């Protein structure tokens, strides 16, 4: 009920500036300032398992929203920031996050610099995964964009170098190379996954990331191809189960190699993405004089393929297939049960756009498998004390306002 009240109140609050669309742009001392925001509310109802830390088997409301301000200080310098808030089961719980905040200096078209908290480009949608109104789907393919891991994937505090290079008849190349530290989110799925294995953190999680994204807008009209690569490192200290003994976790390899593409022709759009995610770590039990080292890891290939067609200005239909597979190596806690090594999700969606600032989506999910609880992909033992079933069917109704 609290989620419903929050949803209604926030949506009503967002409707006002949406209707006053023209009043969010103004000038101060010759610099153009724009304020934009969005708010989304949804309801998810699943047949069997509870999903994304919500009580979806009984029907659960969720919300998320953001508000940003940006200023064009000079032709080359722009500054801006966005705050973000979400209420998705135990994720976010209303905490206001600084989503991004940076200065952007564009020296030339082929080279520019961003410094501050910058969104991390990885695959097709990593940096826009919160903005449901930009996508056909109520929930993005969770194989590649798990909502529970949002806070460790979405942005980094550091910087990036970016640019666009025209290759004449060969189209254009856009690149962005980035590096920085990753925030610890006490209300995120990464910690939830650690808790799912009986871990209790005794320290914050420190993380850093570095990588690049390269996109080729080909000379073939509507065809874009891209690749991203990110290396991450994370470490924390924790206890396990009832034992008071400390262990420390440190990444030895966390590599995410992504290939993706998009093709649009008229009102039709097709997208596909493949990720090769490899994780290796070292877990050391802090036994004085006799540290015990274990080397767990996982291989997690994932991807999706989607198609969408806009039937009219106010209606779009689409479908995607999202594929996630996990192979655990030396797991700290053994994982058994049906569908523990994969999540395959077949999705159909219809999106309505009743106005230029408002969308409504109805989406059906047909999922097979629940993945591994340690890898934080939506299904957790904490929310499913009755045990996880192999299949899940879920209805998601979602609406959003933006200005």
């Amino acid at each position, binding site marked *: 009920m609290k989620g419903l009240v929050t949803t209604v109140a926030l949506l009503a609050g967002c409707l006002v500036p949406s209707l006053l669309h023209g009043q969010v742009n103004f000038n101060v001392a010759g610099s*153009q300032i724009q304020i934009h925001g969005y708010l989304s509310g949804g309801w998810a109802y699943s047949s069997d398992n509870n999903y994304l830390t919500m009580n979806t088997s009984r029907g659960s409301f969720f919300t998320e929203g953001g508000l*940003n301000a940006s200023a064009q200080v000079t*032709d080359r310098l722009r500054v801006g920031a966005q705050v973000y808030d979400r209420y998705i089961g135990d994720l976010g719980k209303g905490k206001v996050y600084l989503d991004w905040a940076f200065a952007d200096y564009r020296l030339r078209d082929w080279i520019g610099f*961003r410094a501050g908290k910058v*969104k991390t480009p990885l695959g097709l949608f990593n940096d826009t995964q*919160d903005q449901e109104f*930009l996508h056909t789907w109520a929930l993005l393919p969770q194989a590649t964009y798990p909502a529970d891991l949002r806070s460790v994937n979405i942005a980094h505090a550091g910087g990036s170098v970016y640019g*666009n290079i025209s290759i004449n008849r060969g189209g254009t190349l856009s690149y962005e190379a980035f590096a920085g530290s990753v925030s610890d989110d006490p209300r995120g799925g990464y910690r939830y996954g650690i808790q799912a294995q009986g871990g209790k953190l005794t320290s914050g999680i420190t993380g850093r990331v570095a990588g690049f994204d390269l996109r080729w807008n080909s000379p073939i009209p509507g065809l874009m191809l891209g690749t991203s690569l990110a290396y991450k490192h994370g470490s924390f200290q924790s206890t396990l189960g009832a034992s008071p003994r400390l262990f420390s976790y440190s990444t030895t390899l966390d590599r995410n190699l992504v290939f993706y593409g998009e093709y649009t022709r008229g009102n039709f759009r097709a997208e596909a993405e493949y990720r090769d995610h490899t994780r290796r770590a070292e877990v050391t039990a802090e036994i004085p004089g006799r540290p015990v080292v274990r080397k767990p890891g996982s291989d997690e290939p994932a991807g999706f393929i989607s198609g969408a067609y806009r039937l009219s200005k106010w209606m779009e239909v689409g479908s995607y297939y999202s594929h996630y597979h996990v192979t655990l190596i030396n797991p700290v806690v053994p994982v058994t049960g049906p569908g523990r090594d994969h999540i395959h999700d077949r999705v159909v969606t219809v999106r309505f756009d009743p106005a230029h600032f408002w969308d409504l989506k109805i989406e059906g999910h047909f999922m097979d498998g629940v993945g591994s609880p340690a890898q934080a992909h939506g299904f957790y033992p904490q929310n499913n004390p009755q045990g996880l079933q192999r299949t899940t069917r879920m209805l998601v109704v979602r609406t959003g306002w933006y200005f």
Partner: protein
Amino acid sequence: MTAARNGRAKRHRKLAWKLFGLLLCVSLPSTAANVKVIANLSVKGSQVSPANLKSIFLKTKTSLNDGSHVEPVLLKSGAAHEAFVKQYVGKTTAGLETYYRSRVFTGKGLMPQRFASDAEVVEYVRKTKGAIGYVTAEASAEGVRILEVK
């Protein structure tokens, strides 16, 4: 007999090519003729290439070869807007809107200036250094430079 048939076939092929050429001449300018690309007088030259025009409106090109800053200006809706976006930007109007919004909400750019009428676009382009916009072909373009897309 065969020679006469071949000659007739040759004439028919020629006629077909001429008709095809005529159709092209009629159809291409009719789409292009609906829209006129205009620029502030600070923008040098009288031509812009389709590739540069696309990059300017996708905001991946923010300066011209001489280093001067350029800024795209759009109509909010209408036939000219739809024709321009489809022909020169290569997106649907909804697709371009989504593109701009994705930049705004990731901090990669501001929403470009958009106006409801040709007169407002012309007025903004006239008084804004580096502004490049488009209006319907019949609209008055006093005080701005008309760019040929070539």
